[in-house]
């Protein structure tokens, strides 16, 4: 097969570019510890509200027995429930999320909280918010006509101003 020498040159250049990009992704993934949240855990999305962990009165911010914070959220067309959560800065927070209907994602801009929420699976991600302030939590996987309305509020308060999860809420979290 005859290939024009100029064409051959460009093929090599573009292949070289692809190789460079793949290499840089692989390299940063290894050196910086970048990886997608890889928690694989199944859940029945259709009957989420009848289950245990994602029952309606179990959602929100909860203090675990070991003192760590856990946020249980449900993504549904078109919102994250509960709509508003408050968490302390400089504290590891574990998000556990599930979708009621279709593929969603949760992303808090300017932080490294970002995960897909796949129906049938529980998404889990642990992160720390360094800066107090009001953040939006957005859906960044197209989920339907109301996708651009799917967002909720996350308030990060300074660690010293954090008074803990309300006592009543904590009681409910105990089995």
């Amino acid at each position: 097969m005859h290939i024009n020498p100029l064409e051959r040159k460009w093929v090599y250049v573009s292949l070289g570019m692809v190789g460079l990009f793949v290499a840089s992704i692989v390299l940063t993934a290894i050196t910086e510890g970048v990886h997608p949240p890889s928690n694989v855990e199944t859940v029945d999305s259709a009957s989420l509200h009848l289950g245990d962990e994602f029952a309606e009165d179990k959602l929100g911010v909860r203090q675990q027995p070991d003192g760590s914070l856990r946020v249980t959220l449900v993504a549904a067309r078109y919102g994250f429930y509960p709509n508003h959560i408050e968490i302390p800065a400089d504290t590891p927070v574990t998000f556990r999320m599930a979708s009621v209907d279709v593929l969603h994602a949760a992303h808090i801009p300017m932080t490294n909280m970002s995960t897909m929420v796949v129906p049938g699976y529980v998404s889990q991600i642990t992160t720390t918010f360094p800066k107090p302030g009001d953040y939006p939590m957005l859906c960044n996987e197209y989920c339907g006509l109301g996708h651009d309305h799917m967002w909720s509020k996350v308030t990060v308060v300074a660690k010293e101003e954090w008074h803990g999860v309300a006592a009543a809420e904590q009681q409910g979290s105990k089995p």
Partner: protein
Amino acid sequence: MRTFIALAWLVLSGLSAVAAAEPSTRIAWTPQTLNLVKSGDPARGQTKAASCQGCHGAEPANAATPFPYLNGQLATYLYRQLQDYKAGGRPHPIMTGIAAALSDQDMADIAQWYSRQEPVQMPEGRGDVPRLVVDGDSKRLIAPCGICHGGHGQGEPVDTPRLSGQKASYLKETLLAYKSGQRHNDIYRRMRTMAERLSPDEIELLANYYGGLR
């Protein structure tokens, strides 16, 4: 001793079951439930719905009553409401007793028959489309009504109800009931969170809009 521990455990687990809040609805749209609703027979439903028609029939005599029209409503929505009336998720002085006498198959039959009836054509003309219907209000986290209830208020799967062809008075009462929390069979408070942020004026506006929509 062992019997005593077992008894104590039973009592305690019973107590904790009471302490945990009831889910807003016991219905989950699993394939089995969806198939059951689909299997409803409209012909049998028509016979069973004869007594429903007294209050819910689309007739001039019923226009001023507080009872909703059911014609053209989604079968899934009707089925879930009947189940919620029966199980107590949507307590009602009249409907709880009626639904208690219905079997799952009765509910599916009736739901299928009503869903196949022509929606009621309202006499009022269609006014301006309220902003909340098309754009919502992102500052208050209110999604536009139309994205879930359909561009013409026709309802959408799985069980988002039809709004057009409904009495404006019923829509208003329903929104107010969601707002006050008196009605609470919406999973994850999806409708309550939205209704809580609506002012009484906005509720009036939306009810009149959908009530006059063809």
